[in-house]
């Protein structure tokens, strides 16, 4: 006698999402995208399926000129400082405003706390200087 296995919707979704995950891990992203689009149409109410469709969907880039991302027209001062000094802070998070080092700490939250205490008017630039650079 033949045995028929009926999967619940949840089990079907899990099975399909396992396939999506496997495709992503195998670097078959185009296949994963195609499958996730199919699944999103099939299960529009599943948050997990919609999540995968969203993260795999190729995004659109949009250029704006209305809101300056940084108040100044350039971050040349920060760049010069980093070139000259970043390697002196291995394993540290650095916060810079212009050519001024606002904070340096291995702990990201401690670095941010130091920045908050200064009550700075402009956004600072964060940079993480690794202890050693991997052979990239």
């Amino acid at each position, binding site marked *: 006698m033949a045995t028929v296995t009926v999967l619940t919707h949840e089990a079907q979704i899990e099975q399909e999402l396992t396939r999506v*995950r496997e495709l992503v*891990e195998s*670097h078959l992203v185009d296949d994963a995208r195609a499958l996730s689009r199919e699944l999103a149409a099939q299960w529009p109410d599943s948050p*997990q399926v919609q999540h995968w469709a969203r993260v795999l969907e*190729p*995004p659109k880039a949009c250029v*704006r000129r209305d809101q300056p*991302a940084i108040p100044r027209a350039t971050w040349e001062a920060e760049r010069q400082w980093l070139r000259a000094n970043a390697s002196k802070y291995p394993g540290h998070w650095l916060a810079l405003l212009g050519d001024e080092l606002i904070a340096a700490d291995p702990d990201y939250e401690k670095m941010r706390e130091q920045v908050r205490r200064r009550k700075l008017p402009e956004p600072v630039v*964060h940079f993480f200087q690794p202890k050693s650079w991997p052979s*990239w």
Partner: protein
Amino acid sequence: MTLAFEGRSNYLNGIDAPGSQPLLHLLCQLGEERISAVAMVDTGAEWCVMRPEIAAALQIEAAVDELPIALSSRLGTYYGFLHREPLYLVGEGEGGGHLRLEATWFVSPEWQGPLVLGWRGCLERMRFAIDPGGEWFYFGEMEGEHG
């Protein structure tokens, strides 16, 4: 042949210890909080990779029922999840624009490498060019697209 770009940003090259490989770093901003950080551009990286500290600052967490995926990288295999978060490339100079893109990030609590701008869900969807002479990274929308 003329290609048009809406913005450009000076990149950092050689801020690491002398003797190591040339790497291209760009100032960018992440999330709606616009956390400014310097990221490494790597066209050979499959995904953007977010430092766990920045993910924590942006309150990014995996969904409770989400199974991790494995990412093999130059630094080994890491387990994490994919997440969508805005990326802004910061334009410099008069008239220059800044670019916004809903990038897909691989987020792993164990990641020890730099903040990476990779191909999928990011570089594959923008026009860009590099001018080593002036250390400029030019960027713009892809032809026929406006976000």
